[in-house]
């Protein structure tokens, strides 16, 4: 088991390295010449030369890649092109905000959707199952900003329960922060819960249709016992996979919902940088998003190894 875990960790490190190469290629090599791509056709040769020098574009690509990677490993993500600020100082508090929001949403979404997914799977074909099928299908099809605006109209404009903008500031108290981010967190929950519910349902169903479950029923075990003792331990791995997959939705949903609620997270920072075409900031945000994502996926896979009943005993 330990060997499997070490293997998976190594795989995570290799993935991170490959992703950093991919991001570097996308931002530095794909455009051919970053300077003229960013400054546009009308730039003067002097401006282009100055810009190349500023970004260190005169050395070969692999040298630039390793000096960039070396900087990143030491926590140096470079300096923003538009406001000359050190990127890491601006990025860390925002990453903190984003992780808080995503964690809040995951805390509501995971128990809710896994519970309801198991419930739907147990009652397959009955009214509960069919209702959840249609409801989740509709939720999946709705763009995240639509859910958010409907919630704003109802909870903010009609009822006045929450502020429409989720503005957090340094030194905000924990309870205040929870209150202010409730609306975006619930919107985010709706976004991921539907997917998680559907996928949990189908993975429990596929376990329930396997021969050893039928065997358990045939030897006369009660339905609740078959589900809790035989089905669920083996459905845990696919359910964890489902949760990990949905972290992607969380990351993507966060970017859009931060824009709706004007929440100062890393998604907003990246979107701003993209519209201003601030390449170093885009690179840094992309790398941080990718890192969070790869790390979470690796942790999920390790959790799967840990809960797998077949790996508990030594052969």
């Amino acid at each position, binding site marked *: 088991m330990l060997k499997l875990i070490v293997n998976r960790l190594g795989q995570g490190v290799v993935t991170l390295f490959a992703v950093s190469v991919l991001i570097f290629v996308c*931002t530095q090599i794909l455009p051919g010449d970053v300077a003229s*791509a960013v400054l546009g056709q009308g730039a003067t040769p002097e401006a282009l030369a100055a810009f190349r020098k500023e970004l260190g574009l005169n050395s070969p690509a692999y040298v630039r890649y390793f000096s960039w990677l070396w900087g990143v490993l030491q926590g140096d993500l470079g300096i923003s092109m538009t406001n000359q600020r050190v990127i890491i100082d601006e990025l860390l508090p925002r990453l903190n905000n984003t992780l808080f929001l995503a964690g809040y949403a995951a805390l509501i979404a995971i128990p809710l959707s896994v519970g309801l997914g198991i419930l739907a799977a147990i009652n397959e074909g009955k009214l509960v199952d069919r209702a959840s099928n249609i409801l989740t299908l509709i939720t999946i099809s*709705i763009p995240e*900003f639509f859910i958010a605006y*409907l919630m704003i109209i109802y909870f903010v404009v009609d009822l006045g329960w929450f502020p429409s903008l989720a503005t957090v500031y340094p030194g905000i108290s924990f309870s205040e922060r929870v209150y202010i981010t409730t609306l975006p967190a619930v919107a985010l929950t709706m976004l991921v819960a539907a997917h998680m519910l*559907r996928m949990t349902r*189908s993975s429990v169903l596929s376990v329930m249709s396997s021969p050893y479950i039928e065997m358990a029923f045939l030897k006369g075990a009660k339905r609740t016992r078959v589900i809790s003792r035989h089905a669920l331990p083996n459905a845990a791995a696919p359910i964890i996979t489902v949760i990990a997959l949905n972290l992607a939705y969380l990351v993507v949903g966060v970017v859009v919902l931060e824009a709706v609620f004007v929440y100062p997270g890393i998604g907003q920072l990246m979107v701003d*940088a993209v519209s201003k075409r601030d390449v170093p900031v885009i690179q840094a945000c992309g790398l941080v998003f990718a890192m969070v994502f790869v790390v979470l996926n690796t942790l999920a896979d390790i959790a799967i190894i840990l809960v797998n009943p077949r790996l508990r005993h030594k052969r």
Partner: protein
Amino acid sequence: MRILGHKPTVTAWIGMAIIVVNLAIAIFGPAFAPYSESQTVGATWDEPSMQMLLGADQIGRDMLTRLIYGARMTIGVALATTALSFFIGITLGFTAAVLGGWVDTIISRLVDVILSIPLLILALIILGVFGSSIPVLIVTIAVLDSTRVFRLSRALGMNLTVLEYVEAARLRGEGTWWIIRREILPNASAPLLSEFGLRFCFNFLFIAALSFLGLGIQPPFADWGGMVRENSAAINFGMLAPIWPALAITILTVGVNMVVDWLLSVEARPSGAQAEM
């Protein structure tokens, strides 16, 4: 009535009706629109009236007219993206399956790396470097999205290349391209069709989200995601202006998903299990 040898369910019929109506509006709608795309006919966020059935937008243009023009742009770009994505994905996927060896290994590893981080992040990086225009948008999302199509068509191709009739074609000396076109593609078309619906939904919502962030289709073109963004300030006054384009997006994706859900149940593939970004 039967489609693909199966009787559609009620929800599938509703979905198909929604798709047909949306396509009709995208193709013929502008001819029947009450006003022209950029004509100012009222004041900012005018209430709905007999002249403007859904009211006015943020600079007094007729909301209904903008929605009709937006249909063509929004659906057109998403369709073009999905078509290009399928062309790239199927070509590479079947080639990898038929040729195998190092070709397969190289493409598969590259796809693995792209798929190891969310597509939105990569799309943002590329749009940030190249700037957003409609051709850049279509090519970027199509290339990124084709990784998903590649996975499916490679798996389908792998299952088909080991069958006797493909082996027979190979032994008669048919070329790779001929085998892909005449032996594999026809036999993989049913799962690819439902995948097309899924990918269309994904791309459609993806482009809408990018436009909503101000990084997708740029003004002055009317497109639904961008219209939500332009009118978003109205929400704080309790006005429904951004709700209409968002509702239009929702109705179309619900419609396509209803049909896809039926197709998947016909093929006995687990619904929801293939949903990944």
